[in-house]
């Protein structure tokens, strides 16, 4: 039987600021080497979930947090031991490359932080630069390359230390539609190579179906699981070709029914 990598059980999060109840009774699990997309209307509490996992929200300091989050069977919420973070990769929506470091220096930073020598880190960085199609841009500074390229660099930076579980928070939200398709293909190619466990948070249902094995639909705030769907489209998938695949549209229509209700509710909430 497959191993559980991430388990969220009856999660409850209420921010102290504004007394906002962001998440309630949220439960789902992610198996090893699985790609799970978590979709929900904008502002429903998706990022709150990831921030709880990565300890950007501290229980008792930022919010009242109840329930349980387990990574490889170890409780995350109560512990002050953050070594579990070492096996997590976190990709942000906003570009968080360090502006004063070149593309290459940014990509190899996680290795340097782990105490690797500069020469070794450079060799590996070169390999990853090529993998994400940034060869020839290694010495550029982030402001000198396009938004799509910056996200490629971020992807390489997240993958270079081979985290076993990768969390992505709307990673391509700021990109144009076409660049986004290219990035989705890139993510799938790279996943195919390493088979990390991938949790993708997005409001874009098409993106979720394109990439994921399973789609978890969240309700409007306070977020809880509304429904779960398996995406039985065979791999390898191609993001561009999927757009006129009948199976893709059938799955999309089925899930959209659930999601649309919640989007409407969230919009009415303002």
């Amino acid at each position, binding site marked *: 039987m497959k191993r559980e990598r991430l388990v969220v059980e009856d999660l409850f999060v209420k921010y102290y600021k504004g007394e906002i109840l962001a998440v309630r009774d949220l439960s789902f699990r992610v198996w090893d080497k699985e790609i799970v997309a978590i979709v929900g209307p904008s502002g429903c509490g998706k990022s709150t979930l990831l921030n709880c996992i*990565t300890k950007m929200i501290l229980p008792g300091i930022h919010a009242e947090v109840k329930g349980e989050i387990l990574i490889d069977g170890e409780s995350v919420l109560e512990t002050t031991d953050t070594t579990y973070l070492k096996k*997590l990769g976190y990709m942000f929506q906003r570009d*968080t490359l360090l502006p004063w470091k070149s593309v290459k220096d940014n990509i190899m*930073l996680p290795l340097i932080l782990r105490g690797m020598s500069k020469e070794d880190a450079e060799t590996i960085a070169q390999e990853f630069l090529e993998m994400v199609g940034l060869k020839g841009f290694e010495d550029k500074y982030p402001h000198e390359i396009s938004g799509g390229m910056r996200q490629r660099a971020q992807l390489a930076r997240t993958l270079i230390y081979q985290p076993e579980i990768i969390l992505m928070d709307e990673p391509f939200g700021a990109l144009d539609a076409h660049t986004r398709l290219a990035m989705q293909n890139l993510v799938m190619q790279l996943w195919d190579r390493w088979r990390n466990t991938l949790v993708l948070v997005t409001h874009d249902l098409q993106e979720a179906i394109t990439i994921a094995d399973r789609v978890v639909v969240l309700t409007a705030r306070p977020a809880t699981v509304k429904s779960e769907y398996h995406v039985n489209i065979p791999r390898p998938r191609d993001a561009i070709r999927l757009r006129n695949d009948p199976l893709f549209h059938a799955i999309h229509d089925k899930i959209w029914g659930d999601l649309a209700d919640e989007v409407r509710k969230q919009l009415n909430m303002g």
Partner: protein
Amino acid sequence: MKSLRRKVYSVTFWRITSIIIIVFIWELIAGGLFSNFILIDPVFISRPTLIARDFYDYALSGLLIIDLSATLSEAMIGFASGLMVGVGLGLFMSHFRTLARVVEPYLTALTTLPRIALAPIMVIWFGLGLPSKIVLSFLSAFLITFFNTYVGVLSVDQELINAIKALGASSRQIYFHVILPSVYSWVFASLRVCVGYCLIAAVAGEFVGATAGLGYRMLLASGLLRTDRVFSCFFLLMIVGYLLVESFKRIENRLLRWRPQVIT
């Protein structure tokens, strides 16, 4: 491409031409070309030829080099020490927020006070020599860099810190990879302004009391109605200031080449 190059040439052409015209008119109205045609008495505005001759004498007498090195060393020693102490103390203070808030009004008061107002007391405390002027330009550089450093620490992008933390950075690593570079970018961006203020401080200090320096020489010459010498010092100061600011502009651009270029 070609038309752009032509444009650059024409700018250079008009720069040189306009200088020649100004010098010519100056010489003319001060009676240098026709002795019976004088619009303004050269006692007040001197004359380019007189200034050039005086400049030659000034250089040959050895005084020029003495004055120039006095003013420059006052400004640069003050600048360098002010920069170091400013960054050091700014970083130190950012660890002690309460202390920083206690002394903040004092420093703000010092900053809003025209620093030249400190010159008389500095001359009393540190004498007529270089030290009083060094202290004045030190204060200029120090106050600017101190505030920039302190603000730099406070305004570090929290999302960058979170991102680096998520990549596995320890707090020491966060300090060296995010906080310090961010502070340096604030400090580097103020180098040019800083060096300008240091030059002002040095000259202003010399006006109040000195034994050498371009400001001192200028004041002395002005008392004797030696307009030619006043202008010699004036132009020398202008050239020195321009070169200093330009070279620091280059240093700034070099150090901050990772930033989108702002046109200044």
